[in-house]
């Protein structure tokens, strides 16, 4: 499926492997939490990139100790209305300091991309190419933010405080 990374459509080199399917010898695979928990030693011994996919009711804590083993964590939106992955992704980035790919999968719509990126997602899987192409412009529709989140954008309050301090220190033109 088309994948957006860094505001570009890129080839997806990962393969999802269902819980019943055989695991291929080579190439990066993404497995479910259940499969990871059941076949951990096999997957670790495989010597190929590994990713994990969490359902929206599966928590960051469930994989927190194993994060270094995953190159991708995919979080599933069964519907765009299910906002749990927004918390999960922030916890993975901010509390567990995960630096690999965090991928939004499932019901991914253009108009939620800004929120997703702010919370720490850096890859977005779309159902089709056209939708993905049209979605790219959505990232930059609104520049100002009021909150600190996982994208390290500076909040309005921080910018204001900087400006005020610069003024007080005489460093403001």
């Amino acid at each position, binding site marked *: 499926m088309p994948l957006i990374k860094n505001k570009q459509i890129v080839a997806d080199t990962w393969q999802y492997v269902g819980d019943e399917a055989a695991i291929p010898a080579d190439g990066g695979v993404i497995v479910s939490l259940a499969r990871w928990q059941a076949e951990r030693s096999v997957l670790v011994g495989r010597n190929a990139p590994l990713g994990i996919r969490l359902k929206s009711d599966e928590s960051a804590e469930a994989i927190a100790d194993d994060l270094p083993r995953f190159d991708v964590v995919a979080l599933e939106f069964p519907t*765009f209305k299910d906002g749990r992955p927004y918390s999960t992704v*922030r916890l993975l980035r901010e509390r567990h300091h995960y630096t690999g790919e965090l991928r939004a999968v499932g019901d991914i719509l253009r108009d939620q991309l800004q929120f997703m990126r702010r919370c720490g997602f850096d890859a977005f899987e779309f159902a089709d190419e056209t939708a993905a192409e049209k979605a790219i412009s959505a990232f930059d*529709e609104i520049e100002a933010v*009021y*909150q*600190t989140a996982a994208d390290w954008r500076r909040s309005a309050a921080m910018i204001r405080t900087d400006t*005020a301090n610069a003024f007080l220190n005489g460093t403001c033109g």
Partner: protein
Amino acid sequence: MYLYDTIDQSLVDQRVEQFRGQVRRRMAGELSEDEFKPLRLMNGLYLQLHAYMLRVAIPYGTLSSHQMRKLAHIAQRYDKGYGHFTTRQNLQFNWPKLEETPDILAELADVQMHALQTSGNCIRNVTADQYAGAAADEVADPRITAEVVRQWSTLHPEFSFLPRKFKIAVTGSSRDRAAVRVHDIGLVVKRDEAGAIGYQVIVGGGLGRTPMIGATVRDFLPKRHLLSYLEAILRVYNQAGRRDNMYKARIKILVHALGAEEFIRRVEAEWEAIRDSAVDLPAGEHDRIATFFAPPRFEALPNNDGEFARYRLEDREFAQWARTNVAPHKQLGYAIANISLKPEGGIPGDATTEQMNAIAAIAERFSFGEIRVTHEQNLVLPHVRQADLYGVWQTLKSHDLATPNLGLISDIIACPGMDYCSLANARSIPLAQDISKRFADLRRQHDIGELKVKISGCINACGHHHVGHIGLLGVDRKGEEYYQITLGGSADENTNLGKIVGPAVPYDKVGSAIETITNTYIGLRADGESFLDTYRRVGNDPFKETLYAAH
């Protein structure tokens, strides 16, 4: 009042353009109605029974004259010449055209307004005490906190798809006019012994089909921790709130299911991990926001202005209005003037373009250009010199805005009901109009005294019937409109949920039922007892007897 800087302005401006693009995609057929729905809802645009409805946010109920004129203009140009003030201090336009809504939003952005988060499962427009900065009983100004919360909650990336909508209310007074105990989060701004500002944090109140009074999770949260603490509460709710059943998805159900103790434990654990992080406001930003709410330049005046006293003696009608609609101000020589939007037989909360313009002009001249919207669907001129009250009253009267009925039986809260709303089972507005006409005699109203009637056209309780002294809930009985009557509710600092008094009554019997209830009260009351006092003393039984005796 808070004024936008370039950052605030750029956000609403870009939001308008974003929505313009979404409407264009909808009109061009690129988006289906299903796909468009979540997008329009994020901008307060509902599809109602007969037309689109645009709900404009009036953050914590604060409006300038300038903004009121803009609302008047929008009502004239894009609607049918009126707007409807709601129980959440918002304003609804009932007849906008879809293709014109981006222009309406652009007009709003011109006066630092928007329709963000007036619908959807997000943190809704924050509400506050309408007497903020004016009330004699105020401990601290809730608007500062409300503005801090407004900014933090606007386009919050993590909390825009919560299990259900989320409402936050703030009061800074021991007399609760913001109904903080029936909100998802209620904040009471208070001071500790050293005079430092902090919050009592109340979580899990709400009305709707499962009315509950909120639990206090913190008696005193120091001011600097507010946003991290709110973030902790919302994060616990976002992860653990139910998503399988929309009727059990509000935070009150989670608090109830976990028990307050376990809920608090989870919040505190989450908070420990994020406290003292960048989530909280940097030092200085709170103060920056606070400067916008400094008191206006009050004159040094004596209290009990002589002219005010004289006019009250000379003009009985004015005296009546002053008694019900004027409240004490913290500044000597000033008063708070309430504008009733409940004229006899009128639609609660409606104001015409002409009335909005008149109010804007009066506020400009007599109230430092400030207007407030109340959750009881009235308006307030917060800072009027006592000496000006008579002139203000005369002008209001000439625009049919001086009904002296604040807090009386005809000051009814009603949801839009079946006249507008696609969820309603029954009508609310015509019932309110009928009760208002039935009790039109002001002497009778004053004799009955304080009595809050609240009407909801369905179980979602937008008319707050659970906390009405008399609450009316519209239900559908095989296609007929019936109304369940509850008694004894209140939304103040002693919040109570009303109790059902007996079987529901049909539409055309509601008026006489209300008369029976008030007559019963008058027969039972002791000296100086309000309806609620008497009810709390005698309970449901005497009312039940008289109401259902004839049946």
